[in-house]
């Protein structure tokens, strides 16, 4: 009831990347890829821990990753990893005040200096690098 009265958007609003430009899309992708990498880490620990159950258990677990589905998941992991790193560097530098512009007299129509072309370029480069890495990774995995 209290939450309804507060009119908070909640996770649905936080996860909606459509309304506030590419920076909000980058924010959403960063969160999504972070969660994806966390899930991968947990899965990876589970997978490698099967080695303690002997060679048969290990081979059985490894065979799961050698399928088309397994390769697709690994390709997505490569993309998430590259995007999260590239965009993460942009965000970390931004957090220190690097590349966010300088304060000055705002002029109509008030384009925010922190949402500048360098930031946008870094986001697009991160997306492009992730796509390239995914294509390369997919070709290697499928070529095995």
């Amino acid at each position, binding site marked *: 009831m209290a939450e309804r009265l507060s009119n908070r958007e909640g996770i649905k609003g936080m996860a909606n990347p459509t309304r506030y430009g590419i920076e909000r899309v980058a924010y959403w992708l960063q969160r999504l890829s972070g969660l994806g990498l966390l899930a991968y880490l947990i899965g990876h620990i589970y997978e490698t821990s099967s080695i303690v159950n002997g060679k048969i258990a290990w081979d059985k677990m490894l065979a799961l990753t050698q399928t088309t589905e397994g390769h697709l998941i690994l390709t997505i992991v490569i993309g998430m990893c590259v995007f999260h790193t590239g965009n993460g560097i942009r965000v970390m530098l931004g957090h220190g005040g690097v590349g966010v512009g300088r*304060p000055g007299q705002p002029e109509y129509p008030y384009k925010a200096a922190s949402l500048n072309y360098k930031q946008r370029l870094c986001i697009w480069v991160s997306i492009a690098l992730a796509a390239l890495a995914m294509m390369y990774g997919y070709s290697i995995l499928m070529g095995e």
Partner: protein
Amino acid sequence: MATVSVPKSSEETTTQPSTITLRIKRSNPSESTEKTFSEFQVPVQKWTTVLEAILYVKQNLDHSVGVRYSCRQASCGSCGMKINGKPALACYTKLSELGTSIVTVEPMNNFPIIRDLAVNFEQLISNHKKIKPFIVREDSEITPGTKEFIQKPEDLEKFLQFSYCIKCGLCNSACPTMATDTSFLGPQALAQAFRYTADNRDQGKDERLKIVDDSHGIWRCHFAGSCSHVCPKGVDPAMAIQLLRGYLLGFRK
């Protein structure tokens, strides 16, 4: 050389008003009424603002619509609302700029609703007060024997932009962290913390940094930039927050 000519006939200068459908989200939490939309047909000119359309509805169609407004010129920060899904000032948004024949107005997110389009600013104001939005120092310009605090234009430029904040709450409404964290200070308060910290007359930097250095403070900002995207005054809260964080991370002194 520019040429100014007189219009040939009165017909060419007369703009026939077109009509749009204004959908207003209605709710009254004090009576626990369900949220519904009321639709109104409103005649508009190319210069008609969303606020004028709402006031037309109040004057001619349904006087019970709840809306807060004052200056009608983007100076008071009273008429913030969600227009076609995005936070904006109703007095500062022309219907013709929206380019749709159906315009939906809703109360801003992340603020408790008072009624219909009016929201409660209690948290915004209390967070604003928390960060000590004033010059902190022992002496004062009005103390006898004290000289005027000299400030160069370049000193002024470091914070002037952030002093244009009208506390309309649009940044808090757009912020993804505000959407989920009820205790977050919010971009408005954090930007104002930087405004006073960057002022060379101020001596309260350490006090203010202690306030924002909190789990629900500056570290909850992830630089999504939505606050700066919707700011109607060019304050750029996202920049202020990152520069403020620079003090805590040792990038600035």
